[in-house]
């Protein structure tokens, strides 16, 4: 690599960093938090489809900067935290279909996780022995 190429590479790296920094900042110059949300276990097993599942989940999140956020399951608020970067908490939940966990600040949704319900026994089917029109 000659000097010219090395200079170009350095310039590209510097410009790339500058673009990233601009994207991560809002209009006031505050850096948007980068948040990871994890809810475990993410699947609840029930015997039959439609059956209610009751389970205990652990929700944990990490942020690169201190944030004020609330955790929701669908539209129900579970808890809120102020000026935190790392939280882990246990919740008891009931669900009969997919539940959406979201971590939100006042402006927007910052992270999303799903907890699904799977049936261990899927529906069994039989051939009908009379036509649906046999009522006439």
């Amino acid at each position, binding site marked *: 690599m000659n000097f010219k190429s090395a200079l170009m590479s350095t310039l590209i790296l510097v410009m790339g960093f500058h673009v990233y920094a601009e994207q991560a900042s809002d209009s006031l110059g505050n850096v948007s938090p980068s948040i990871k949300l994890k809810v475990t276990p993410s699947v609840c097993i029930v015997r039959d489809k439609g059956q209610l599942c009751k389970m205990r989940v652990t929700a944990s999140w990490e942020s690169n900067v201190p944030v004020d956020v609330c955790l929701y399951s669908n539209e129900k608020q579970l808890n809120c935290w102020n000026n935190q970067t790392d939280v882990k908490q246990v919740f008891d939940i009931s669900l009969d279909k997919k539940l959406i966990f979201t971590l939100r600040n006042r402006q927007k949704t910052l992270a999303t996780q799903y907890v699904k319900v799977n049936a261990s026994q899927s*529906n*069994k*089917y*039989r*051939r*009908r*022995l*009379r*036509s*649906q*029109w*046999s*009522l*006439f």
Partner: protein
Amino acid sequence: MKFICALLLLVSPFLSAQCVDNEELCATVGKWDFSIGLGAGVLTNPLHDGENIPLVIVPSFSYYGERVFFQNNTLGYTLYENESIAFSAITLINNEYAYFNRWHPQNIFLPKSSSDVIDQSPSESFQPDISYKKVAKRKWALDVGAQLNWFISNSVNAEFKVLHDVNKAYRGFNANAEVSKVFRINEHSVLEVTLGAQWNSEALVDYYYGISADETSASSSIYQGKAGVNPYLNIGYAYRINDEWQLKAFLKRKKLSSNIYLSPIVQDTTVDLIFMGFFYEF
């Protein structure tokens, strides 16, 4: 019979009717289905003075367990089933009685004596027509028997039934053979066409359509019923509007055997059914 058994054994390994979540052909095991139809229709009554039966509200039930099944008027227990055939013991109410049902308000005040039971003119040399209201009351019959289903393909089903009345109403037999094909027109629409034939034994035809010497004073009115075959064609169309509502239309024409329509109490050679309405599924 040997030929039919051999044919069944021959085709079974090559044909299969896999059941998936298909509402027209398959039922979810252990789940009750109940729907109610609201619309307009009529079942024609082939009897002299027989009132056509209006169809406005039509309920429909079905339940399929591992062995037991109930669909509309048929209760059954499946003794053997594989992907090609099912053999079941069944019971159902014979629908021949529907034409003779006297619970209609017009039928309450009926002559009870046998002296005034015949509509006839003395000069008539041919067999006179007789109102069904003026012959002895026919009983309803509970039939019990066997049903064989042959699932020829995923959309074609052949059905054979042999039945006998256990409450000794007509003391005879009836049998039925039909083939149905389901045509899926598009995602929402299904058409089902059925071609079949119903056989009634001499005892059944004579009980419902025969005229005995006790019922008439004119010897020319006496009618001895004989066994006969009634072929029929059904066409059903269903359009699914959403998860709960379906629009359904149904047409049926049954051609009566001459051994039925030549009876003095019968005036039509066919029985027709037409219905169109909206069905709500619960």
